[in-house]
């Protein structure tokens, strides 16, 4: 295969981790909502942990996007 086509395929493959990030974010949102529904008083306490885990999980998707963009634009 030519270098250009390999580059495009590699750029697309580098985005695969986004599938797992979507699953992880879904779990985080669902368990947060369930916890708040069960105990609304704990919402203030859970908010901080929710945002922390959300940001750290979402960072993985951004890493994947960055690797893909490096493959496509820099290499």
């Amino acid at each position, binding site marked *: 295969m030519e270098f250009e086509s390999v580059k495009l395929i590699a750029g697309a493959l580098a985005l695969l981790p986004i599938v797992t990030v979507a699953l992880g974010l879904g779990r985080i949102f669902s368990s947060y909502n369930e916890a708040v529904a069960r105990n609304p008083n704990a919402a203030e306490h859970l908010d901080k942990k929710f945002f922390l885990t959300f*940001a750290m999980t979402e*960072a993985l998707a*951004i*890493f994947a996007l960055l690797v893909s*963009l490096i493959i496509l634009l820099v290499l």
Partner: protein
Amino acid sequence: MTSPTHQFEITPIVPFEVGGVDLSFTNASLWMVIAAVVTTSFLSICMRRKAMIPGRMQVMAEGLYEFVANMIRDNIGPRGQQYFPVVFTIFVIVLAGNSFGLLPYSFTYTSHFAATGALSLLIFFAVVFIGLYRHGFHFFRLFMPAGVPWWMSFLIIPIEVVSFVIRPITLSVRLTANMIGGHIMLKIFAGFCVGMLSLGAGGYVAALFPMLFNVVILAFEFLVAFLQAYVFAILCCIYLKDTIEIGH
């Protein structure tokens, strides 16, 4: 049309060189100066009249102070108050860098590994020196948690050492990658907009969709800008707590 990565280019404004070392005043330095001046003057103007019953301006400054103070109280405990200045400074400089980067034609200095790497290495060395100063040789208990059987140490110690040494890298790459990723996404959708305008009358209607999506992304980027500053500061707190409470 320039490429989406053009916005991260560092261009010297005042060229200046000493002994072969490039010390130019660049656009990155300019925005760092702007961030420092704006945050310092904002806090000083807000606290100009120190009233017992705070006014509108004073509430904003005290809210920022309380936010970081609560973060330290929750994560480090009462003994962490002596580290308040460094955590507050890091939080404010990262928050200012992230949010000023969202202004049109501005420069995001937190999108450069050199800036965020320096901040995270500061915390890394602070953790090592505070740990050695407070606990002496006992500091190395950090790599061997209490209650682990001795034959597990061959497995635990390398893992703990690697996860400790890699901290400044993950801390700075998380912030840098978030900023680069978000800003490139904004520019790519703006590029779609410009590309569709050249198609004629139908293109003007079609260009509305990437523009509306860009508005949504921009709002999301403001959330990310705040969230990443929060995560950066809270991880600094967690690392400092690890070194203060060894073997508990």
